[in-house]
């Protein structure tokens, strides 16, 4: 059963752009954040068509395409390669991805592949996205991922992603977590890295993403005016698990 996000009572992110992209180091939580964000977008826009595009064509083990049933329940259209999750290790782009840039009525969440290699595939859509100029490019940060655990390494990876896809990051998301062992303290501590990266890049921290059960405590600890996105789903091997 889907749990409503819009009426959860948390100070939620307010998506403005037509296209929201989630990029970052692989394993940071991009796909998980993209799923909940797409659900929120759907709830906020009952009239509009909402799509989640899985452009992760690098790692065939974990991707949004695994969550097809869940997205059907959300009423979110999936744009993904026909080869995704088919055991065929082919890095192919879905033909329906042209709708991302061609159909201006479509609200789109894009799950960009991990690192610069994953972001490379986004490059072919970048000129259209940049000229339309109605997008948010959010870098998902998990301070507990070892290759992006300090500011210099994190900025290196973000810079490599920007170079690979040709789109500048416009905001940061704190998704610091240690899987099922995550505590609110962990998230707050990880937030310092997200804040530092945001300051360095001259962009805002758009919101903090955390498992829903941690959100009530989390909002008490975050600065006034901070937005929180509750996460209800986990992308894991062989599909998704609902962890309430």
């Amino acid at each position, binding site marked *: 059963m889907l749990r409503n996000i819009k009426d959860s009572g948390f100070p939620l992110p307010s998506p403005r752009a037509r296209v929201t992209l989630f990029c970052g180091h692989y394993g940071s939580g991009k796909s998980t954040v993209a799923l909940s964000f797409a659900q929120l977008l759907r709830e906020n826009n009952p009239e509009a068509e909402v799509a989640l595009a899985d452009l992760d064509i690098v790692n065939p083990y974990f991707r949004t395409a695994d969550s097809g049933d869940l997205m059907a329940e959300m009423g979110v259209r999936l744009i993904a390669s026909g080869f995704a999750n088919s055991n065929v290790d082919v890095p192919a782009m879905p033909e329906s991805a042209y709708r991302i840039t061609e159909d201006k009525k479509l609200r789109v969440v894009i799950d960009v592949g991990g690192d610069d290699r994953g972001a490379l595939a986004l490059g072919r859509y970048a000129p259209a996205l940049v000229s339309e100029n109605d997008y948010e490019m959010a870098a998902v940060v998990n301070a507990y991922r*070892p290759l992006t655990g300090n500011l210099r390494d994190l900025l290196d990876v973000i810079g490599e992603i920007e170079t690979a896809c040709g789109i500048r990051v416009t905001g940061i998301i704190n998704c610091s977590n240690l*899987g099922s062992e995550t505590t609110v303290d962990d998230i707050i501590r990880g937030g310092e890295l997200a804040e530092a990266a945001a300051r360095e890049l001259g962009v805002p921290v758009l919101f903090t993403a955390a498992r829903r059960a941690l959100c009530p405590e989390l909002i008490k600890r975050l600065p006034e005016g901070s937005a929180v996105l509750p996460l209800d789903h986990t992308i894991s*091997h062989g599909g998704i698990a609902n962890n309430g």
Partner: protein
Amino acid sequence: MAQKVLMKGNEAIAEAAISCGCRHYFGYPITPQTEVAAYMAKRMPKIGGTFLQAESEIAAVNMVIGASAAGIRVMTSSSSPGISLKSEGISYMAGCDLPALIVNVQRGGPGLGGIQPSQSDYFQATRGGGHGDYHLIVLAPASVQEMAQLTVQGFDLADKYRMPVMLLADGTMGQMMEPVELAESTAEKVEKPWALTGTGMKRPHNIVNSLSLTPDELESWNGERYKRYAVIEKEETRYEEYLCDDADIIVVGFGIAARVAKNAVDAARAAGIKAGMFRPITLWPFPKEALHKRAATAKEFISVELSMGQMIEDVELAIRCERPVSLCSRVGGMIPSPAEVLASIKAAAARTGGNA
């Protein structure tokens, strides 16, 4: 205590290797272990190490032979088809008494097979894989934390016994993310007076070689090696037992299968069946004695595997066929579910007159 980080199993292997002094990695990408190579490619240049993507698996394993002969810590990693390609080199390493860590993140086979997890390289890993009389120490991690720990221990064991060690994981172990604490090696540094480091005109030159055309010499090399293997069987066997003391039904499984089995054992206990789990951590040496002891009280054994039934032969040998052993397995990238293992436990309990 080190700070916890969130890592994939494949990354944990790579970082653990670096933490215990490995500065040379030679490999070739293949799903589902590519993150080992990707991680090494990012990290090695920053710490003065060498990451080299070879032109093939065969080239990579021969680079490992060269680096190991020079006395340094070296590793390679691959997945099933790639390990088959490396098997010639692994036999040469065994014949040359060269230490190295070889990682196999298994995928479904035979042939090109699939990219999803499997344990069907059990025979290949525990029976040699290449030609000739030799063993590898085979370590089977069941968590991301253990991927890191056994990587470090694998290097230590390889140096201590002068032989290649295999870390036998599977696609799930390689890809899953869990919090992990990285610890450094605590073993004493092993001197390598046999290594090819240059004589400095101060000593006779060393030779690293697996070739001998003198039969009695080759026989004595093999005999010496098997004396070492006997010590390893005595000293280095590792396993985990869970609720085995009063168990009527013992489920045997390693790696991801053991995690599934543990859940099933808990469910069986909740249903009133005395079930336990036995997890070999070293697949060679297989914990024969410890498992045989359990045959005195347990009534049936179940081997849970992601293969058509390979480890089951070692289970039967270990308990000397004194109790029935059945197989619960899925293959081709499928993983037995806790419900499937529970059904096997219930069937065994019904046969042995327990609750079902």
